[in-house]
């Protein structure tokens, strides 16, 4: 039984047995609980994956004491964070200081709404899906700036300002590379974008501009999630921890969790736009081949692609040295932005002439 039939069955059963309003509320509650569960699992898995990938890249063992191959290390870390004191230092702006982690976590949860996790599994198929993601993701910078300003700490303030300049700059090229796919598809809806890739993913169908856009999107995604080599907002050797220097205990854990969930969200968007989301690997009208590929469940395809992109972003961390702020800004404003502007023109010509497959 696939996820889609299960979800439809639950939906129909609720509406048959309960009053429609109550059924809707129950559905909201189920979605909320499921998303909280996804959050917790993603946090545990991604932190573990990060540490295992790091150790693998550096030829060391990584966490290997707790549980089989150290897989329960993150559970132990979470327990430790729960019993740590989430202190509020003197002279901080108490309201903003405590609100910032909440805001960041709300943003990273609301952004989950238009993502298609599998065939038919989507919280809200909003007709401006991609624009919604771009709009909501830029809200998280407000949380970062709030945390940096409220902390009453020089490191935090500098880290927040750097983070602001960086996220704001790279949003432009991320948005322009998303637009390439919107031009090719002619729709902002996530389900339409996925269905348009039924005979091949945009990365392969979209000619040169789709490939350029994919590369730019990955760079911008790395920068927007403050990952190395763009991690100068929380560069350990310069600013201890950047905007969350003063945070401890559960408040720090919320920032940390939101950061990893944001990596997942960005990679999920990249997988949906360029690699076809839950759509299996199809080649044009090769009926037999496409049928074989359809046997792999859609959720496996989606999470496989997403985790592949996450692995690539983790790979970057151990490959490139950290950039300076002037290098970071000139990379965006002098290279990526003009390139992605010309890329838009190129894709328009290709889409209008019908040269894409």
């Amino acid at each position, binding site marked *: 039984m696939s996820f889609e039939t299960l979800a439809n069955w639950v939906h129909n059963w609720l509406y048959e047995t309960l009053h429609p309003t109550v059924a809707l509320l129950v559905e909201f509650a189920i979605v909320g609980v499921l998303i909280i569960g996804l959050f917790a699992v993603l946090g545990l898995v991604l932190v573990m994956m990060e540490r295992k990938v790091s150790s693998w890249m550096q030829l060391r063992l990584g966490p290997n004491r707790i549980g089989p191959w150290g897989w329960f290390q993150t559970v132990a870390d979470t327990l430790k964070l729960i019993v740590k004191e989430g202190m509020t230092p003197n002279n901080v702006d108490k309201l903003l200081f405590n609100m910032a982690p909440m805001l960041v976590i*709300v943003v990273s949860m609301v952004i989950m709404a238009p993502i298609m996790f599998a065939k038919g599994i989507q919280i809200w198929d909003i007709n401006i899906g991609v*624009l919604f993601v771009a709009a909501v993701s830029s809200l998280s910078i407000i949380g970062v700036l709030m945390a940096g300003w409220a902390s009453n700490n020089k490191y935090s303030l500098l880290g927040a300002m750097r983070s602001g*300049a960086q996220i704001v700059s790279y949003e432009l090229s991320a948005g322009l590379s998303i637009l390439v796919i919107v031009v090719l598809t002619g729709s902002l809806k996530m389900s339409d974008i996925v269905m348009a890739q039924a005979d091949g993913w945009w990365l392969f169908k979209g000619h040169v501009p789709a490939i350029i856009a994919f590369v730019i999107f990955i760079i911008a995604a790395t920068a927007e999630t403050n990952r190395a080599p763009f991690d100068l907002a929380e560069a350990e050797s310069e600013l*201890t921890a950047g905007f969350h220097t003063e945070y401890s205990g559960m408040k720090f854990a919320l920032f940390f969790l939101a950061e990893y969930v944001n990596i997942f969200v960005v990679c999920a968007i990249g997988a949906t736009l360029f690699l076809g989301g839950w759509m299996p690997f199809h080649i044009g009208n090769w009926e037999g081949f496409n049928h074989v590929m359809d046997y792999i469940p859609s959720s496996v395809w989606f999470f496989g692609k997403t985790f592949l992109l996450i692995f690539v972003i983790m790979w970057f961390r151990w490959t490139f040295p950290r950039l300076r702020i002037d290098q970071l800004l000139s990379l965006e404003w*002098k290279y990526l932005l003009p390139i992605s502007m010309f890329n838009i023109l190129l894709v328009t010509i290709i889409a209008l002439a019908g040269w894409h497959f």
Partner: protein
Amino acid sequence: MGAGSLIALAIAALAFAGIALSISKLVLKASTNKQKGEPYECGVPTKGASRIQFNVGYYLFALIFLIFDVELVFLYPWAVVVKNVGWVALVEILIFFFILFLGLLYAHKKGALEWK
């Protein structure tokens, strides 16, 4: 599921954060001492105010960003209909990009894209 799902997700997020924070409040043993509330600056006592002046360059980049972000918002509706409108859309966006690119060149010439 409609726009209500966004409110449901926001409430779920707040509930998640609230539960996590209150569990840790229940479990932890808080302690106080004189230096615990000081700003963390690697053990060195803080000098002066912590909310210091920072480089004006951040504001410059924020201003340029604002222009380009508004341009990006204009491009979204264009991108949706470009296939239906046809080659006229390309000509129009060429004019739009030409003006915009002049702006970027001007900012570059003025040195606004250099970090000082």
